């Protein structure tokens, strides 16, 4: 895989677990729409031919030594991208549901808006994307839950078609939800007062394999994610009050320190970072 070159270096990551039927077309499609952009397939210890298929299609492979689940798999990709020094990372699912033709728009929005995260959303505009009734109900439910927490509506909180910039990459490479990460990741970013935007995208029905959230697992998913959101909100409040206390003690100082000892304007919920990608350029690269 090529090292990042230039301030707008982009890496497309594809978490995959037993996706031999779709992975080659996903990688080829990304390479066709974004020639020159490296594609990294993170293989979550597949037992089929996902790795050879992805490699043959031209992707770099990050094979995990054992199955970590979606969150651990995606975070491994974020960690590697951060270490290599990429400025932007866009995640595409390996099952063929995401249209690689939408990636340039997500990338453009990431670069121009200054948002830390851009979500490819099925529901921002009517675009013919279809989803099952149970999933649709779940999405409506989590929209309602997240609205007051995030302070703005999010139309498609379960979308895995997500682009992040280097500031979000820094956060996610250190802290990322391990199971069902999409919704919790939004709250993790909210704790940093990071911003997100949504871009309308088209999603296709999965071509191979089956969703991991079926039957009783849907219930487990709801409980798990609600608990994760609740815990993250509690952490947020603690940080918020700590930041309030610190700012009242040191009114002149605008730079806070986070729990990991890193300094930066993103450390407190009230401190919105205003630096562009150049602020982080070169770190870890």
């Amino acid at each position, binding site marked *: *895989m*090529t090292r990042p070159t230039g301030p707008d270096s982009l890496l497309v990551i594809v978490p995959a677990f037993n996706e031999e039927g779709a992975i080659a077309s996903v990688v080829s499609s990304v390479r066709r729409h974004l*020639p*020159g952009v*490296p*594609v990294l397939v993170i293989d979550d210890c597949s037992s089929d031919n996902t790795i050879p298929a992805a490699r043959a299609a*031209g992707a*770099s492979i*990050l*094979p*995990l*030594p*054992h199955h*970590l689940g979606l969150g*651990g798999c995606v*975070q*491994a990709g974020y*960690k*590697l991208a951060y*270490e290599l020094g990429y400025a932007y990372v866009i995640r595409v699912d390996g099952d063929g549901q995401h249209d690689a033709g939408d990636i340039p728009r997500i990338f453009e929005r990431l670069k121009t808006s200054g948002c830390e995260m851009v979500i490819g959303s099925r529901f921002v505009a009517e675009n013919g994307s279809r989803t099952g009734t149970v999933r649709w109900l779940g999405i409506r439910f989590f929209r309602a839950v997240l609205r007051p927490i995030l302070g703005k509506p999010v139309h498609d909180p379960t979308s895995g078609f997500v682009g992040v910039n280097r500031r979000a990459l820094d956060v996610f490479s250190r802290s990322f939800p*391990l199971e069902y990460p999409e919704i919790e990741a939004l709250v993790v970013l909210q704790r940093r007062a990071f911003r997100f935007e949504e871009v309308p995208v088209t999603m296709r029905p999965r071509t191979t394999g089956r969703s991991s959230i079926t039957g009783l697992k849907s219930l487990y998913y709801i409980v798990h994610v609600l608990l994760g959101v609740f815990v993250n909100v509690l952490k947020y409040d603690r940080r918020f009050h700590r930041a309030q206390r610190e700012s009242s003690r040191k009114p002149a100082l605008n730079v806070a320190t986070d729990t990991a000892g890193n300094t930066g304007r993103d450390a407190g919920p009230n401190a919105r970072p205003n630096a562009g990608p150049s602020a982080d350029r070169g770190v870890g690269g």
Partner: protein
Amino acid sequence: MDRLLNVTTFLSLVLLVLVLISVRRAHIRVEYSVTWLAAAVAMLILSRARPLLEAVRQWSGLPDTPLTLFLFGSGIFVLMFFRFSVIISHLRDDNIALAQRLAILEFHLRQTARPEGVEANASAHES
């Protein structure tokens, strides 16, 4: 009552022997066996020392002795399960971080180990 205490004694002894055998065969690490051994010994003592059990009952204000024994035993095991959940959570986090680190290091190694010509070809192929 005596029957309940005898059953508790028997179960405590079984647990004690089982844990000791497991430690000897290295199925359980010593540091994780201590909690089990302490729980087994506590139940053994309580089931054999009736005055002590009675004192615990009076101190806790519970209406009868069997209930005291049952709640005491349940409390011990709930605390142990909680402790092991904490340990497992830490182990899982460490395990995931290690697996990710290993995968990333292997990735860097493969990139470094590639001969120059292969690297150039691969870069051309990848881009």
